[in-house]
């Protein structure tokens, strides 16, 4: 794939936390429509790398270009624009528990519309509410729109978090261990949603996972990290399960 069209281009990324290099001279590229799995043992630097990409964690060194925008040197406005175009799904969904499911999905538009039109579904224009309902339908949950988010199951919450990310109309979706807190069947459902987004809608998806089966079953490419360095980067079809398991030894 042509490098000029890359959605993510990162090089020389370094991050030290507590006197330890958790990301050490990492170069990472993701192309449009690609579904990439970041794998590695605890502390390998997967989550930090993901957060560095949208500067939820500030890098100590390195270059990052997302959607062609220089993320490291971005102004506050440019950084907000970059984040607006990049969906981020956290391990524990991070929904606003006391708000309705629909409000949580409408929140996905907060980066692209004025705050007074999207801080709650009650004030959102009809078009925005309709779009949020469509996003809920894409994750199979239009029937829970009126429910409070803290009354949803773990799998439902994670799918709502994905719907919120879809509401951003992102070209890139980053997911930090999205299935880690879910039971196996809910985890498969969530991973299925990611695969569909990449294959059917051409969205670039980068997810971290401890589940070797998820990495092998749902990604186009696997990037393995150990002690903050990339030690494996190959198409999923060319990798043996044992090679991925070895990253955890």
């Amino acid at each position: 794939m042509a490098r000029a069209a890359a959605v993510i281009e990162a090089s020389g990324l370094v991050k030290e936390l507590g006197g330890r290099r958790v990301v050490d001279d990492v170069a990472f590229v993701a192309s449009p429509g690609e579904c990439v799995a970041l794998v590695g043992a605890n502390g390998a630097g997967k989550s930090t790398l993901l957060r560095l990409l949208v500067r939820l964690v500030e890098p100590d060194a390195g270059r990052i270009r997302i959607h062609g925008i220089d993320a490291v040197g971005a102004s506050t406005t440019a950084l907000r624009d970059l984040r607006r175009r990049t969906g981020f799904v956290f391990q524990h969904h991070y929904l606003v528990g006391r708000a309705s499911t629909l409000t949580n999905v409408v929140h996905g538009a907060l980066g692209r519309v004025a705050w007074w039109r999207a801080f709650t579904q009650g004030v959102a224009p009809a078009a925005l509410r309709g779009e949020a309902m469509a996003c809920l339908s894409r994750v199979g949950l239009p029937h829970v729109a009126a429910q409070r988010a803290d009354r949803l199951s773990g799998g439902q919450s994670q799918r709502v978090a994905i719907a919120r990310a879809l509401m951003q109309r992102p070209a890139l979706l980053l997911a930090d261990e999205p299935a880690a807190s879910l039971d196996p069947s809910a985890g498969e459902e969530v991973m299925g949603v990611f695969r569909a987004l990449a294959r059917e809608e051409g969205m670039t998806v980068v997810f971290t996972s401890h589940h070797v089966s998820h990495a092998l079953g749902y990604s186009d490419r696997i990037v393995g990290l150990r002690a903050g360095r990339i030690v494996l980067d190959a198409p999923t079809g060319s990798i043996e399960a044992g090679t991925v398991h070895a990253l955890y030894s």
Partner: protein
Amino acid sequence: MRSTPDAAGPAAPARFEPPGALAFALGVAAFAFLVSAFRATDVSLPELVRGGPSALRILGEMFPPSLDRLGPVAGSLLQTFQMAVAGTAIGCALSLPLAVLATRHLSPHPVLHHATRVVVAICRTVPDLVWALLFVAIVGLGPFAGVLAIAVDKIGFCGRFFAEAMEEADRKPQEALRALGAGRPAIILGAVLPAATPGLINAALFSLEKATRSSVVLGLVGAGGIGIELQVSMDMFRYDEAITIILAILALVVVVEQCSAWLRRRAM
């Protein structure tokens, strides 16, 4: 099996640790100050006992309560509660933006954060009776001075507790909104306020209870409400009227506390 402990076991530690020289000196000084406080304020049990017959006489004159001025008393009681509600509403409304500025991670600048904390602390530290005296001097006698005094007092109370509720609000949804490009107002309205709502309602209802009690006293300095009715009855030795007013105040406070407790349970 033997239940008695082994008499030859290791020695138990001392029952009491002897205080250090400084702690002992401070204890002696504190006790001396306590004694001087009793002396300076003429605390006397015999005086209290001698006042017993007067207490019984006043108690006797209180019953049966007089219902002669029930209409004006009810009007004043309503005004007292209206003062409390208006003052609390103004105080809470002003406390919200101040609380945002006083919340470390939401304040746009550390200087603004500290300055707001100082303003809120001043509002809280100065007693509401002093605020009432000040506002009576500024806007004249009447309930408006009372409303202003309650509002400023509530800024001190709610400003602090609203800020604490916002500090304690779950940060994860806030991070999620930040990650999708939301700005500060969106994060505050979309994630902070919904999470802090129980704490905000709690503080607002407690401040209404407190305002209802304090609005009674504010009348004594001319800031409107039923306090002035009570003062007049006491000054004219109309203890039968005074007990009616006291019972009416008691009923109002109990009703407000019960309603507030019910609303708090609903808000959780």
